[in-house]
């Protein structure tokens, strides 16, 4: 089977997966009981939202008075045409709210992603090539720390130490401090640390495990016997083959860990990005906004999986297109 056919099949599968996930979401919306809705509506009322409006939007989204098939059709058409509804809490289309929020998410998620990939892979590779040294043990321990510490608690503890006790950094995010300013950088330090710690640990563990598979491989010995220096052996003969399986964690990591982590980070540090937008929408029962802000990471996950599958074909000459 040719590579083009393989890529075409993967794209087709991504489309089908999107369709199925949208259908499942619709199904969930349809069977969601009203009482959960009222409970939240009550919460919305106590927190300053409008109960009637909440109920109205919920009915609008779910269209409970129309036949199921019509609702399904409308829902799908709306989703496909990017007509994602109106956010009653913010009095603007859902997509506008998202467009306003996402730059704040990028501001700290991009540096955190880069840091976690570079630091994670570097430490992991170093650990693997220096197995059983003190640095390796230290790295492994740090990894356990990183994957075990609850994001939100870590954030709170950092605020406690660096903002409350030491007073070095602000304890929460304030808008209006510009983008490329020192003040903005200062208030992004803690969120970046929180978000990248877990991701560094994850990347480190995986890259160490993957690289270890190759450190003692015969072809690495062959490379050394050829006269390649340590750096060349590490980059071309250990890292490059390990990159193939590492692609999986790279995508899974950015999507799973970082997105979920970002959500919590934004709530803890009050950064007005996608996560906080979504969280406020949940608290205020803004169903349209909840759906949009949770589906976006899902769509990105699907695209990420697709990119990963295609990256495999470029990175691994051994892939057999028929199997997948």
């Amino acid at each position: 089977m040719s590579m083009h056919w393989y890529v075409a099949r993967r794209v087709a599968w991504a489309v089908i997966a999107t369709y199925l996930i949208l259908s499942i979401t619709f199904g969930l919306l349809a069977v969601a009981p009203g009482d959960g809705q009222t409970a939240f509506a009550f919460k919305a009322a106590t927190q300053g939202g409008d109960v009637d409006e909440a109920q109205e939007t919920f009915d609008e989204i779910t269209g409970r008075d129309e036949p199921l098939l019509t609702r399904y059709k409308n829902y799908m058409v709306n989703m496909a045409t990017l007509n994602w509804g109106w956010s009653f809490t913010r009095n603007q289309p859902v997509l506008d709210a998202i467009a306003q929020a996402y730059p704040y998410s990028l501001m700290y998620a991009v540096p955190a992603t880069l840091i976690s990939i570079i630091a994670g892979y570097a430490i992991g590779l170093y650990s693997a090539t220096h197995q059983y040294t003190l640095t390796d043990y230290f790295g492994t321990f740090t990894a356990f720390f990183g994957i075990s510490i609850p994001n939100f608690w870590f954030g709170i503890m950092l605020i406690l130490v660096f903002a409350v006790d030491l007073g070095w950094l602000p304890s929460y995010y304030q808008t209006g401090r510009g983008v490329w300013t020192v003040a903005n950088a200062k208030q992004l330090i803690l969120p970046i640390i929180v978000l990248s710690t877990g991701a560094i640990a994850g990347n480190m563990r995986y890259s160490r495990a993957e690289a270890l598979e190759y450190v003692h491989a015969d072809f690495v010995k062959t490379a050394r016997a050829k006269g390649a220096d340590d750096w060349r052996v590490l980059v071309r003969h250990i890292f490059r083959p390990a990159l193939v399986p590492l692609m999986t964690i790279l995508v899974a990591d950015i999507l799973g860990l970082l997105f979920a982590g970002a959500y919590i980070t934004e709530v803890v540090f009050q950064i007005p990005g996608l996560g906080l937008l979504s969280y406020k929408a949940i608290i205020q029962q803004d169903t349209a906004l909840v759906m949009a802000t949770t589906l976006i990471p899902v769509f990105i996950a699907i695209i990420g999986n697709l990119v990963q599958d295609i990256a495999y074909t470029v990175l691994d000459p051994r892939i057999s297109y028929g199997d997948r």
Partner: protein
Amino acid sequence: MTDPLLSIRDLHVQFNTDEGTVRAVDGVSFDVARGETVCVVGESGSGKTVACESITKLIPMPPGEIAGGEILFDGEDLTETSEKRLEDIRGGRIAHVFQNPQSALNPVYPVGAQIVEAIRLHRDVSKEAARDRAIDLLDRVGIPEATARIDDYPHEFSGGMKQRVVIAMALAADPDLLIADEPTTALDVTIQAQILRLLRDLQDEFGMSIVFVTHDLGVVAEIADRVVVMYSGKVMETGPVYDVFEQPSHPYTKALLGCLPGQGKSMEPIGGTLPDPKNPPAGCRFHPRCPHATADCRTGDHPEPLDVGTDHEAACVYYGPGYDASVIQSDAVSESTATDGGSEGGTPADASESGGDDR
């Protein structure tokens, strides 16, 4: 004999593990002359691979450590040499071919790229020139349609073909010494013969020395000029291949040859097992399994190598003062004359089974 190309003097290599220190190579000496083929023979775990990989420090360090001795290559002591200089020597002057061709090539690069890499690490040539040379080499080692196959990936080659590619890669920079560590063990018998013939032809053409590590005495007879017999990190016997086969002088060599079918006597497995490398026996390493062991064999150090013929040494007390070497020699004669002919047939490759598989 003039100055040897490689001279290993009293080499000690050990591995420091949690369970104790493993003295894998414990005082090994042998020479390799220019243009000569030396076979290092021994069972699995005898230290032959470690000894050969220590020459260019390919063993993992740590836990491995060269604890003593010297490795003189063309007059230069490699144990003292800087890592930078060693990188020039590896592949440039001393090349390696390993046991398992299936895993010796990096799966993510075309074979040509890997040969080009080897060439360009040691020769200051353009990519195009290196590629032309790579095609030449592939052609030389017997890969059909080398020009077409140079961009194929390793998984597109068979085991025997991969080993040819590995050999081509080893020849990339015209090495003076080729260390081949059981290069045929993982291959079919028919392919084995082809690879051996290829190595012999290449040696004639390139004029290099070969150190050939094997546990297969059949292969030794095929390719060796001289033989080094190793056991438990020690050299038991060295000598020209003809002398060692005709007049094995160490009881261990005799026992090893006794395992070989078709030698005109009954096949006899060696009783007992290899000693624990963490805690080797005192005296001669072989004494627990030796039929001739005396009180002197059980204490003190391993015996010194003693002359038993021209350029032929054995590390056995029977060749020292106060012993009658004929006990062993005559034993050999009596055994080889007592033909029962019951074990004719079988291929030399079967003998390799006695040693078990080396990793």
